[in-house]
C-alpha cells in the first residue's frame, strides 16, 4: 500500500477558517507550486526564453542593434544555397558520429576495467575523470602544444621511433585536423561514458553472471546476453546526452582551429557564432544554430520511444 507523506496527508483548511499565510501554505496545490516555482522560472528564463527568442531571430533579417524584419524562412533558404553550410553540416555529422562511437567503445572498455577489483581502484577512478573535470579551454591549450608541428610530443615519438621522417601537420592538414579534433573530443568524453556506464554496471547483480557462468556461458556470452541488455537504458541515455553535447560542441574546436583550415573543421556552433557575433548577422546565425534542432529532436524522440518500448 502506498503511504503518503505526512505533510501531504494533512486535511485542507476547513471552509470558514480565517485566512492566514500558514493556512495558504498548508494547501497542497499552493505549496507544490511554490516548491516548483523557482525551477520552472529558471527553466523558463534560461531555457525556454532563449529557445523561443532564437526561433524568433532565425525568422528575421536582424543585423546587430538594428530592428529585425520578419523574413519567414528566408534565412534557412539562404543556407541551402550556402556551400559552407553544407560543409559544416557534413563536418558536424562526421565529428559527432565518429566521436560517439569511439567514446562509447572506449567508455565501455573503461567501465568494464574499472568494475574489476584491483589495488588502487579508487585512485584510478579519480584520475580517469580528470579529462572531464579540467576546463575544456585549458586542456585544449595543452592539446595545441601536443599537436604543434615542432613541439608535438606525438611527432617527436613518431620521428624518433623511426615511423616517419618529418612531423605531421596535425591542424594544418584538412584531414588530420578533423582527426585531431575527434581525438581530443574522444579523450575528453570517454570518462563521462566510463563513469556513467560503471554506475550502470554496478547495479547488475553478480548472481546473474554466476548463474550464466554455471550454465556454461563464456565471458563474451555473459557480456552480450547479461550485461548489455541490462545496461541498455544507461547506454541509450548516455549516448543521447553525448550526441547532444558533441553536436553543439564549441570550445574545443574554437580554441584549436576555429573551423579552419578552409572550413575543414567548421561545425554548427562555430559557424553560428561567427555569423552572429563576428558577422553581426544575428538572424542568420540563429538559423544555423537552429539547423541542429531537427536532427537532435529526431534522435531524442527515437531513443526515447525505443526506451519506452522496452
Amino acid at each position: 500500500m502506498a503511504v503518503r507523506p505526512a505533510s501531504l496527508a494533512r486535511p485542507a483548511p476547513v471552509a470558514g477558517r480565517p485566512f492566514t499565510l500558514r493556512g495558504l501554505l498548508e494547501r497542497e496545490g499552493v505549496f507544490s507550486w511554490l516548491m516548483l516555482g523557482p525551477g520552472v522560472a529558471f527553466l523558463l528564463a534560461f531555457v525556454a526564453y532563449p529557445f523561443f527568442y532564437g526561433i524568433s531571430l532565425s525568422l528575421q533579417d536582424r543585423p546587430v542593434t538594428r530592428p529585425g524584419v520578419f523574413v519567414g524562412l528566408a534565412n534557412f533558404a539562404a543556407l541551402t544555397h550556402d556551400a559552407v553550410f553544407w560543409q559544416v553540416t557534413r563536418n558536424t555529422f562526421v565529428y559527432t558520429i565518429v566521436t560517439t562511437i569511439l567514446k562509447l567503445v572506449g567508455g565501455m572498455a573503461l567501465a568494464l576495467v574499472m568494475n574489476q577489483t584491483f589495488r588502487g581502484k579508487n585512485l584510478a577512478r579519480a584520475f580517469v575523470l580528470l579529462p572531464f573535470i579540467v576546463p575544456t579551454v585549458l586542456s585544449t591549450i595543452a592539446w595545441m602544444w601536443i599537436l604543434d608541428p615542432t613541439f608535438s610530443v606525438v611527432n617527436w615519438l613518431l620521428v624518433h621511433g623511426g615511423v616517419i621522417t618529418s612531423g605531421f601537420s596535425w591542424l594544418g592538414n584538412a584531414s588530420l585536423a578533423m582527426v585531431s579534433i575527434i581525438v581530443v573530443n574522444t579523450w575528453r568524453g570517454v570518462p563521462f561514458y566510463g563513469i556513467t556506464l560503471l554506475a550502470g554496471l554496478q547495479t547488475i547483480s553478480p548472481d546473474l553472471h554466476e548463474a550464466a557462468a554455471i550454465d556454461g556461458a563464456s565471458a563474451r556470452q555473459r557480456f552480450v546476453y547479461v550485461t548489455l541488455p541490462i545496461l541498455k537504458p544507461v547506454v541509450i541515455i548516455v549516448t543521447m546526452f553525448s550526441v547532444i553535447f558533441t553536436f553543439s560542441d564549441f570550445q574545443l574546436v574554437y580554441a584549436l582551429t576555429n573551423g579552419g583550415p578552409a572550413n575543414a573543421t567548421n561545425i554548427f556552433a562555430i559557424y553560428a557564432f561567427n555569423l552572429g557575433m563576428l558577422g553581426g548577422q544575428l538572424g542568420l546565425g540563429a538559423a544555423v544554430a537552429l539547423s541542429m534542432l531537427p536532427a537532435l529532436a529526431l534522435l531524442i524522440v527515437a531513443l526515447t520511444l525505443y526506451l519506452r518500448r522496452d
Partner: protein
Amino acid sequence: MRTRREFLTVTVVLGAAAALGPRSTGAAPKSMSVLHESSFIKAFDEFFVKKLALEYEKLTGIKINYEPVSVGSLLTRMTTVAETRSGPEVTATGFNWPWLFEQSLVDVTDLANEIGQKLGPWYDSVTDAVVINRKWKGLPWGNIGQLEVYRTDWFKEVGVTKFPDTWEELLDVGRKLKQKGHPFGFELGHGWGDNHGWLYPLLWSYGGREVDRDGKTVLLDSDETARAVDFCRRFYKETMLEDVLGWTDVNNNKAFLGEQISCTNNASSILVVAKRDFPELGRVTDHALNPQGPKGRYHLLNPQSHSIFTFAQDVNAAKAFLRWLYDDRQLSAWLVAGDAYYAPFLHAYDNHPMWNPEPRYIPYKESLKTSRLPGWPGPPSHAMSESMAKYAVVDMFAKACQGAPTKEVIAAAVLQLKQIYKAK
C-alpha cells in the same frame, strides 16, 4: 526557523520587501565604465588604470572603471552590451565596427572636429571606418598595423640586408630561407587579424577587389585575383610550413618567438615580446612594409577608436571624459605608454617623440597612408563583416594552397560573396 514553511514565509516576505522597497533615484553617475580589449602592451592598460582613471576621478569625482576583455572577444562583448542595452558607457572599437553598431553609438562629430582642429587634421583613411552618414561615431586613437616581421640575421644568411620590395622578390628570398630550414609562416587559417592582415593587401596589390564602391557588385572574378591566388599558392608551397593553413592568430607569434619561422605578417607585438622576454631574438627582429605587387602596396586598416553607447546614463558626462582623454596632455602620454603599438591618426603626432626610442616601429606609421579596411573599395557595412566572418577571401587563398584549381576557388568565393552582398 523551525520548519521549512517558516523559512519559506520569511523568504517570501523578504523577497517582496526587496522588490517593493525604495528604488535609487536617477542621480548623476558617480562612475563610468570603459570597455577595452586587453592590450598586448601591458603598460598601455596600466597607464589608463593607474594614471588616467585616477587623475580623472581626482578632477571630477567620477570614477572610471576600465573593463578589459581578452584579445578577440571585444566584438562579442560589444554585441552583448548593445543588444541588452546595458553595460559600459564607452567602448573601444576596431575595423568597421562603428558601422555595425551605428544605431547604438552617439554622434561625436563635435568632439572629432575639436580634436581635429587641435591635433589634426585626421588621416583621410580613418574616416571610412568611423564617419557614417557624415557623423563621427568613434574617435580613433591609433591603428594596429599588420606588417612584415622578419629575422634580419637569417635574411643576411641568404645575402639579403634590405627587406624585399615586391612579393616576387620576397618569394625568392623565402625559397632560399626554407631550403636553409628557416621557412616563412603567414597565417592562412581561421584567425581574425593575421590572416586578413596580409591576404587582403596581397589581393589589392595584384589589382584584385572583393566588391565595388556600390557595395553590391562583386568584382572578385578577375585576372588580377587569379594572379594573386596563383602567387599565394607558390608563396605557400615554396616558402612556408604546411601548418599555417590551420593557424589562428596566436600561432605565428608563437612560431616566430619559438624560432620556427623567419618571416610573418603581424602587429608589432612580436618585437615587443621578443625585446622583453627574448632579448637575443629582439635584436635580430625587424619590421618592413608589405611588399608591393603589380598594382601597388597595401596594408590592412584596423583603427582603434572610442565610441559612446546611446544608452549611456549620462552621454554628456561620457563626452566630457573623452574630450579630456583626447587632450594632448593625456593622449600623448598614453600613446607613449603604448610603446608605439598604436599608430595615431592625427597628423600632429607624425613626428611625436613616441616614435624616437624604437625606430623599428616607424613602418607602422608609414603604413597608414596605404591602409584600407577589409572589403575595400566597397563601403564598410554589415555585409563586409559577414564576408570576414565567413572567411570568404581567406578561404579562397587557403583552398588554392591546399591544391584546388584557381578558377574553382575564385568561383566558390564569388558565389559566397554574391550571396553576402545580395548581388544580382
